[in-house]
């Protein structure tokens, strides 16, 4: 039972060749490069979407923070498209892999923090001690703030992994429950099927929301440090 349930999260290799590389690179094919002044509908729609997201996200940043615009738009589009593609049946979702999410979270978080330390050292160090703390509490609070700083990339990675994995697992379980219940009691199977449909709608929302949350938090860490 255990083996079967988690088998969709094993990194796909075909006869020893890691086809996970092809699966991760597949969303690039869904974003055609604009080559004309006036493009076709698909490219225009994607450009419009990118502009909408960029205006919303980059409004709160200083000019220094806005140099990260390309990085953040690529991040949100990559995570969003990968999550949505993972909702297709029998597909592999790369964002369920802790390795990939750690590989995304740690460099981005470290980049934001190191930028802050390099250009605004005093202000970055001041983040470790909130204003107005009573003097006896200072050592403990510095330790707590350090821990909360270092837990940020871990939380980013694990949040994305856990949310997407949990959603996929739930869909598997409820789907197989509905299938098993058809021969036992069709009404219960119908109810379970309706639950499955509602869950799928939720998963669509979760896919997009998780992309947004990841990018928003990176953007927040950036704002603190520029």
């Amino acid at each position, binding site marked *: 039972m255990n083996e079967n349930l*988690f*088998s969709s*999260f*094993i*990194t796909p*290799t075909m006869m020893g060749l*890691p086809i*996970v*590389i092809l699966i*991760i*690179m597949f*969303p*690039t094919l869904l*974003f055609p*490069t*604009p080559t004309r*002044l006036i493009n076709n509908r698909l490219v225009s729609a994607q*450009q419009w979407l*990118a*502009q909408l997201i960029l205006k919303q996200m980059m409004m709160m940043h200083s000019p220094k923070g806005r140099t990260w615009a*390309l*990085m953040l*738009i*690529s*991040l949100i*589009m*990559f995570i969003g498209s990968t999550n949505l593609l993972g909702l297709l049946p029998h597909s592999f979702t*790369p964002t*369920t*892999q*802790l*390795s*990939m999410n*750690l*590989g*995304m979270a740690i460099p981005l978080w470290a980049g934001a923090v190191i930028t802050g330390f390099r250009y605004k050292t005093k202000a970055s160090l001041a983040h470790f001690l909130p204003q107005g703390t009573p003097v006896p509490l200072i050592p403990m609070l510095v330790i707590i703030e350090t821990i909360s700083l270092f837990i940020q990339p871990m939380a980013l990675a694990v949040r994305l*992994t856990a949310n997407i*994995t949990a959603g996929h697992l739930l869909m598997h379980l409820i789907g197989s429950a509905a299938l098993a219940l058809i021969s036992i009691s069709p009404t219960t199977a119908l109810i379970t099927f309706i639950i499955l449909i509602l869950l799928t709608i939720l998963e669509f929302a979760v896919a997009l929301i998780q992309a947004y949350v990841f990018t928003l938090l990176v953007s927040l860490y950036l704002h603190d440090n520029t």
Partner: protein
Amino acid sequence: MPQLDTSTWLVTIIAMILMLFILIQLKFHKYSYPLSPAPKTFKSTSFPTPWETKWTKIYSPLLLPQQ
């Protein structure tokens, strides 16, 4: 839990780095948002010489000495 099997981590991370930091950014940096086309105000950079600022009758082609 298969996500904790570290033998595949290197491949996944390298593929993701390639994808996220290179491929997708190459796609998105081609997006351009030009301003709506509007006629540009034409300002001449060359100034007319003093004898060209006033049209004088002697330059009319029919009044030139006939050849």
